Structure formats: structure tokens, C-alpha cells
């Protein structure tokens, strides 16, 4: 791809090709992914709210098994990771590839820390006998946080990739995905742990 007709056209035409998406910073295709993901998690959280309203007793009792401290810790970890990733984008734009790679590396380590905490939480729930099929609350909890954790794993792979091929574009695109993972977690945290 990108050869043939793609290469010989003017940049102006290409940037207009995305329509309203052209206004977004970074890669338009990544934004389609981000919007899709937000729609998915938004629908899941809305579904959670409705289910909770139908059976508040069960939800409140089950929610008591979650550890708000782990959730808060993971929020801090992920937001910090995001800050390093955002720093990496700025460094990449300034052309400082070495610094960019260092910052992505630190963001990556924070991502690993997030997963460690999350796996610890899962192990605790499972040890207490609350699995995927325990009740509606836990089904939703595992689906939403598990799907989010899968994004963290996928995001870590992307971070590794863009650290290896650290062009400004690649770093921007990869980190955009990572920030989406941040954003989703902030919502998930508020709904599952805080309310």
C-alpha cells in the first residue's frame, strides 16, 4: 500500500480525505478505533447501571467485595503511565528519539504494574469463590475490567512496537491508543469502585 497512486498525490488532498476526522490530531483511523471502543465501554457501563437498578441489593453486596484501594492505586498508576506517554509524544515531536524511548519504557513499566495489581485482585475474587458466572455483577465486572485489561496488554504491545519504530507519527498513534485505555479506566473505576 501507499505506493502507486497514493505516493504521487498532494498531502493537502489526503488530509482532506478523512472529512471531519481530519481535524483530529494524529491518525484518523486510530480515532475510529477509539470512538468504537468508547461506544463499546459506554454501552457496557450503561448496561451495568440498568442491571444495578433492577437488583440494587445484589449489586451493592457484590460491590462490597471490591477493594477501592486497589482501584485507586491502579487509577494513579495508569494516569501516571499516561503522563509519560504524553511526554513521549512531545519528545518525539521535538525529534528526541532517545528520550522518547525512555519515556515509553517508563509508561510500559507502569502498564505492567497495573496488570499486576489487576491480576492480584482477580486472584482474590476467585479465591473467595466469585468467578465469571457467580452473578450478574461479577459477570459484568469481569467482562468490563477483563476487556479493559486485554486492551492494556494490547496497548503494551503497541507501546513496544512504537518504541522500536519511534517515528513521530507512530509514537503519536500508539500513545493515542494508550490514552484511550486511560480514559476508559477512569470511567470504569468511577462506576465499579466509587459509586
Amino acid at each position: 500500500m501507499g505506493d502507486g497512486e497514493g505516493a504521487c498525490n498532494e498531502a493537502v488532498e489526503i488530509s482532506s480525505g478523512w472529512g471531519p476526522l481530519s481535524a483530529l490530531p494524529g491518525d484518523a483511523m486510530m480515532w475510529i478505533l477509539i470512538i468504537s471502543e468508547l461506544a463499546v465501554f459506554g454501552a457496557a457501563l450503561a448496561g451495568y447501571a440498568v442491571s444495578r437498578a433492577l437488583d440494587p441489593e445484589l449489586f451493592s453486596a457484590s460491590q462490597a467485595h471490591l477493594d477501592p484501594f486497589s482501584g485507586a492505586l491502579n487509577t494513579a498508576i495508569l494516569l501516571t503511565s499516561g503522563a509519560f506517554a504524553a511526554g513521549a509524544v512531545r519528545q518525539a515531536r521535538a525529534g528526541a528519539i532517545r528520550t522518547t524511548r525512555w519515556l515509553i519504557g517508563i509508561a510500559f513499566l507502569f502498564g505492567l504494574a497495573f496488570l499486576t495489581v489487576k491480576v492480584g485482585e482477580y486472584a482474590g475474587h476467585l479465591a473467595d469463590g466469585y468467578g465469571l458466572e457467580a452473578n450478574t455483577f461479577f459477570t459484568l465486572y469481569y467482562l468490563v475490567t477483563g476487556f479493559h485489561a486485554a486492551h492494556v496488554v494490547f496497548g503494551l504491545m503497541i507501546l513496544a512496537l512504537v518504541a522500536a519504530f519511534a517515528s513521530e507519527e507512530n509514537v503519536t498513534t500508539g500513545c493515542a491508543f494508550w490514552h484511550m485505555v486511560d480514559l476508559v479506566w477512569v470511567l470504569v473505576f468511577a462506576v465499579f469502585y466509587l459509586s
Partner: protein
Amino acid sequence: MSEGLTASKARNIFYGGSLFFLVVFGALTVHSHFYAVNTSTNAEGLTDSVVHGKRIWEENSCINCHTLLGEGAYFAPELGNVWVRYGGRDDPEGAREAIKLWMQSQPSGIEGRRQMPQFNLTDEELDALADFFKWVSEIDTQNWPPNDAG
């Protein structure tokens, strides 16, 4: 250089994203596979006769009139719960006989009624088919269908 690569980046994100969803789907399928084998179906009850019954079900293309767990043609009744509908939970022998009798008395030939063909099954084959229906009726289908009517 960067603009010429826009299309290839769009393609890579499409590939990467699709691969991610495919992997998630695959992982969930594996979980569901083991759930089906260990939890929702009676793996030990899957006798030769039940397997034989499933083959008869397939050889006679029953699915192209009936539905089974809601899937199939919509021309004839749901059979995933036919065992229950015929009272098989309380009176297995009665349900078995009723199913066999029904199969043997087709087609009804009544004008204006949907006709079921005569499949000329042996007594052993009819038993296997009944065993298959019994086994299917015991699958944990999340309480579907809503009632015995199917």
C-alpha cells in the same frame, strides 16, 4: 514520506484492531468450549445412542422444517424442548412412545395441514432420536425457550 504512508497506517490499524478482536473472540470461544463440555451439557450422558440420534436428525434434514434451540427453519415446531413438552421429565417412557408414535403416523394427509414426511425409521433409530431429544432438552440454555410451547 509520511503522507504517502497514511493508507498503510490505516491498513495496519485495521489489521491490528481486527486481530485483537479475533484473539479476544478466540479466547472466549475456548472458555465457552470447556463450559459446554463441563457445565452446560451432560457430557457423560452423550451415549452412542444420542450420537446416533443426532446423525439421524441430520440425515433426514429435520432442521429444514423444525428449529432446534431456536435455529433452523420456522416451518414446524421447536424440538429442543419436545421431550419436555411431551412430559418426558415426569414420564420418560410415555414421552418416548408418544414421539415414536407421532413419527410413525406421518404424514397425516389432512388437507390444509402442514405435512411431515414419513422417514421410515426403524425402532432402534426412533429410540436413538428420542434419546437425542432427551439429551438436548437437558442442555442449560439460560432458560430458553420462555415456555413449553417452544
